[in-house]
């Protein structure tokens, strides 16, 4: 059942990483769709059957009926099925504000050294010159209020930057104490950043620290896809690949239409090593 898979893609890889962190001892606030939602849906079917997660529409602890129609991750009967409680957006925010959300799980466009999140604009904000995106949505509340935030983003130079072009949702802003100076609750903030290639944590200086790396990339490849050089943990963990069981559930029950996972590069086990599949 826990046989390491031999063929999977980058997005499946990162979904499985996050999914394994999920524990039904804690309460999660999960961002809209994509990898965060798929991670918890997978966890609920793997290791955390009593998983309690919350979505922005005030849905507490659903037993979602998957797969979802496109975009139907909230305010839709399959996503809200058999919840413990149905509320509304202010209720979700209240719970987070009260400290009930142990972990927030978020996808983002761009992240920086301090874990600040940009989902507003790449390039210049003023005058509308940069490339504009949809705004923070619920991510600002999650990033501000969850005790620990787990971010997922792509491993690309322009998405992993020294300083985001626009702070849509707060990481550690510009370092220790900055969140509190702006009225955010103490003890909160970024905890992990996952990409399809790596896992980062944070040092006492509130800056990203590389802690784990996928078996199918080298440290050099990874650093080339970052705009800054992060601190590196003394003992760099090699992240474990998805298992066959995880992939089967993900592919046949959750992301059946490939809405989330269709975008990634494929990895294969060849000659005892994981590497990018040649197309």
């Amino acid at each position, binding site marked *: 059942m826990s046989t390491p898979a031999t063929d999977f893609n980058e997005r499946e890889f990162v979904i499985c990483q996050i999914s394994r962190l999920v524990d039904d001892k804690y309460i999660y606030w999960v961002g809209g769709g994509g990898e965060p939602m798929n991670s918890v849906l997978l966890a609920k079917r793997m290791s955390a059957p009593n998983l309690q997660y919350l*979505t*922005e*529409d*005030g*849905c507490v602890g659903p037993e979602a*009926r998957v797969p979802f*129609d*496109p*975009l*139907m991750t*909230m*305010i*839709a*009967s*399959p996503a*809200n*099925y*058999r*919840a413990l409680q*149905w*509320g*509304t*957006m*202010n209720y*979700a*925010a209240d719970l987070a*504000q009260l400290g009930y959300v142990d972990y927030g799980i978020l996808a983002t466009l761009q992240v920086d050294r301090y874990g600040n999140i940009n989902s*507003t604009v790449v390039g210049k*904000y003023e*005058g*509308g*010159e940069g*490339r*504009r*995106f*949809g*705004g*923070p*949505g*619920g*991510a*600002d*509340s999650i990033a*501000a*209020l969850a005790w620990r935030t787990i971010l997922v983003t792509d491993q690309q130079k322009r998405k992993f930057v020294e300083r985001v072009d*626009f*702070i*849509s*949702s*707060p990481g550690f*802003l510009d370092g220790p104490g*900055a*969140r*509190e*100076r*702006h*009225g*955010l*609750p103490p003890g909160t903030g970024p905890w992990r950043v996952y990409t399809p290639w790596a896992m980062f944590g944070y040092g006492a200086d509130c800056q990203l620290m590389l802690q784990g790396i996928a078996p199918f990339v080298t440290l050099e490849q990874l650093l080339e896809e970052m705009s800054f050089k992060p601190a590196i943990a003394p003992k760099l963990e090699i992240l474990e690949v998805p298992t066959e069981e995880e992939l089967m559930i993900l592919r046949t029950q959750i992301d059946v239409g490939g809405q989330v996972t269709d975008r990634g590069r494929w990895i294969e086990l060849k000659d005892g090593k994981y590497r990018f599949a040649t197309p």
Partner: protein
Amino acid sequence: MRILEEGKADYLKVDPDGYRASVRDHKPHQMVSKLMTHKEAVERFVRDGDYLAYDCNYFQRGPSSLIREIIRQRKKNLWLCGKFTYVACALLVEAGCADRIDIGFIGFGPWIARAVREKKCTIYEYSNAVITLRLKAGAMGLPFMPARSFGGTDGFQHSGCKIVEDPFTGKPVLLVPALNPDVSIIHVHQADEFGNARVFGTGIAHAECALASKRVIVSAEEIVATDEFRRDPASTSIAHFTVDAVVHAPFGAYPGTVQGYYASDPMGVIEAMGAMFRGDFTEYLKKHVYSVQSHDEYLQKVVGTEKLAEIRRRETIREGYAS
């Protein structure tokens, strides 16, 4: 209680006393029938230059049929409450109806981006939760509400929020300005002719929108007798006196879902999203808005009874969606 930091953007004027006076003078305190057509409701209660809030969105129990009617009537210069939404803001901007947006989350697309660059559309920055908290403050008759989020973001600088020294703890705390839209449009499962209304399942801020807005149009999948409310008063989401117009709108959220009643139409969703991503709603508007005179005609001629039967059939979950 010092002000430590202030956003620099315009925001809809905070005036709880003015809102109270408007509730006293213009809200229908008496129980009177408010049933009317989409056309009449939008003609009477949506005005050029209004601040417009729609609850939920074009795909998720939103007032999609009312949004199409607003476009059909070519309303102008609306200021949109862009929380938790994909295509509706883009539709309204591209159709020439709106020129300001408070943003929590919207589907942006190239068209709005161009309108912003050409200074035809102005954007103000919030988050979904900050906007619904602003509505909550408006729904309580307050001028503002504290919040523990949004501080430290760049969005804050482009908002109407402030950070003050909390007079109780001495620590910095953010204040959001109350929001009292000129008009809200809300789609619900059931309403009576007076405007008592029920939403089943989760939601965004339907109760807040109804309480916070000077004018309120409710569109409902079903019109039911007032006695239905009286036998289960706990299920009343919206009280009649907050509502100005009740529109019977079966499949009013199409192409979106109404939980427990019908599923979304995935092809309809993708058609709208695709048009938004391309930055061209011309064909979409022609087909889905301008080609018909009314929502009824839209359902008959554009959507078709087969599709309606299909999305109803695809919604197999009923549990929790009835009183």
